């Protein structure tokens, strides 16, 4: 179908975008990569009176390593993240996950800020921000605020963003260099949204887990952290019994949906299988196997 009629403003700086958005009084939509918004407009699931295009706003697309973090501008395209040497070095779990995001033509346009704001529960970037305890920088006419990824995702396609706010930057704490990681996903076809996926990072010392992070997507209304399973692993050595306990804890903590593509039971089963593999691989890498 074709989109409904709307007005269009190409903002050339952040102030311009913010004032156009607040002037629209809740009836405006930010247009970033358009890879989620344009389908919604074409289906007429969204009917904003004005689109505020931020693609020409300078200074919003970058990937930068600081001492303890990696900062990413909201307008950074998925393909740039996928290729970034900074991401490969410091956030290898993100580099691995980006291979699963859509297809090249969509990665060429889609942005991290758009992906977080759209908040699809089966999308990679929202889960990665939650997994890595990223902080999301937001601007509005009232100034700047920073929120934890954990407070940002409210439910499927809903975030804590106010209608006059724009996501401008995302800050990922750098995991320790020797931290192990893994990302496992199952989708119907390469590039489709995940049926379920799991990201894991593990810091180990003397073969014991010091800290584990386990994030899941596609298994509920938002991406989730498996806090209980993380606590089970902390301070322990890896064993088959421990792995089985962690998997059982993950399976009982999630409440996946049934849809056209998979049943709730299948997704719960799949999440456990993927988590088992990801925890094992992350642990192996944390133990010094850098492959």
């Amino acid at each position, binding site marked *: 179908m*074709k989109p409904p009629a709307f007005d269009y403003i190409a903002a050339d700086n952040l102030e311009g975008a913010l004032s156009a958005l607040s002037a629209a009084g809740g009836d405006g939509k930010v247009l970033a990569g*358009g890879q989620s918004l*344009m389908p919604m407009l074409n289906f007429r699931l969204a009917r904003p009176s004005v689109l505020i295009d931020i693609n020409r706003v300078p200074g919003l697309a970058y990937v930068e390593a600081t001492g303890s973090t990696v900062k990413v501008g909201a307008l950074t395209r998925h*393909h740039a993240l996928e290729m970034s040497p900074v991401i490969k070095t410091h956030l290898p779990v993100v580099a691995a996950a980006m291979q699963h995001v859509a297809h*090249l*033509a969509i990665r*060429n346009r889609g942005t991290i800020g758009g992906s977080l704001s759209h908040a699809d529960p089966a999308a990679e970037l929202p889960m990665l921000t939650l997994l890595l305890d990223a902080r999301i920088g937001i601007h509005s006419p009232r100034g700047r605020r920073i929120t934890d990824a954990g407070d940002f995702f409210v439910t499927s396609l809903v975030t804590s963003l106010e209608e006059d706010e724009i996501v401008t930057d995302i800050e990922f704490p750098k995991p320790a260099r020797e931290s192990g990681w893994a990302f496992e996903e199952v989708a119907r076809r390469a590039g489709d949204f995940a049926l379920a996926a799991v990201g894991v990072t593990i810091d180990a010392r003397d073969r014991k887990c010091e800290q584990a992070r386990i994030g899941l997507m596609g298994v509920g209304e938002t991406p989730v952290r498996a806090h209980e399973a993380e606590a089970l692993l902390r301070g322990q050595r890896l064993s088959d019994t421990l792995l089985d306990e962690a998997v059982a804890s993950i399976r009982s903590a999630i409440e996946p949906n049934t849809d056209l593509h998979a049943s709730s039971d299948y997704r719960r089963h799949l999440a456990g299988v993927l988590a088992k593999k990801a925890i094992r691989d992350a642990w192996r890498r944390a133990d010094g196997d850098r492959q």
Partner: protein
Amino acid sequence: MIAHKTIRMTVNGTTYERSVEPRLLLSDFLRHEFGLTGTHVGCEHGICGACTIVVNGDSVRSCLMLAVQADGAAVETVEGLGTLQKLNPVQAAFQDQHALQCGFCTPGMLMTITDLIKKYPLASDAEIREGLSGNLCRCTGYEHIVKAVRALVRQPGSAP
């Protein structure tokens, strides 16, 4: 009434100025304004890949971009690749390997591959298949399309 916007765009090497409604999709602009009907429209939500074109050097879905957004851009469509007398290397590989049947998906495939071979080594069939996974061929002639890409990347100096 929403005011039209004036845009300038280079399409296959020629620069045009036009006045457009903001909601006009880039796919429809190319097809209706210039008669460039090689850009096919299958789904209008990014799934099928038939409408893939190249904007400022990157492959994009023209059904997910507004014509106004391409103000100042250099746009390449399938019509710009080669001529009947002189096919470009991607088109020639498709011909050699019989990589099309009805031809509906072909323009999107050609434009996708134009970008893929610039950005990825495509060293294995798995990588080629993954690269093509965003383009649907309902004649399901995928095997020959994979063969065409394989022939293209194994032929040094063939990149257009």
